[in-house]
């Protein structure tokens, strides 16, 4: 399972991976972790991290 480093915003009302609601953070989530977290409203993608080797448009459409 591949993971990509991206910048996320915690949009939920509970901490996610140690980051408080409203916090932006950079993390490497697997595709499944990211899919579940976005679907439940925990996070949204802010942007691909500059350290990422993946293109910014890779899955960015998941972000709302």
């Amino acid at each position, binding site marked *: 399972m591949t993971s990509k480093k991206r910048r996320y915003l*915690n*949009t*939920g*009302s*509970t*901490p*996610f*991976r*140690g980051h408080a*609601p409203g916090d932006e953070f950079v993390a490497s*989530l697997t595709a*499944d*972790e990211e899919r*579940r*977290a976005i*679907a*439940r*409203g*925990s996070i949204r993608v802010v942007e691909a991290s500059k350290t990422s080797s993946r293109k910014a448009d890779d899955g960015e459409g998941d972000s709302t």
Partner: protein
Amino acid sequence: MAKGTALKDSVDVDGVDLSNMARAVVFSSEHERIDVSGFSASGANEFVAGQTDQTLTITFYGAYGAGETHATLYPIHQGREVVMVKWRADQTAPVSATNPELRGNGLLLTYGSPNRTRGEAETFEAQFVAADEDGFQFYAAALP
């Protein structure tokens, strides 16, 4: 070592800190007992350990907001997803030998929400079983 009171537990499911949404945690790890008794002078039964069955049962409060219990747990249950589940006794202290973290990849086979009674706080049980060969184990260091 002081005797503990369950107050500051940390409960994390699939990266979501559900500590404040949880009120009880019960871990069970049981090796099957295989009788290998033979004739003996004492007549005592003799056993060896067989398969290990592990469950992690957490009592949660019902909450239906983004990233809360229902939004986190039900899709995992419905989709038969394998997720990382973590518990430790003191959320204010890092994982260590004296504050070990129980963790493993779990399947949420039993999801008991809604479980509502008029005038009472809604609580329900969610039971995880180990989803891979590593099972649930206690670790003295957090994941990198």
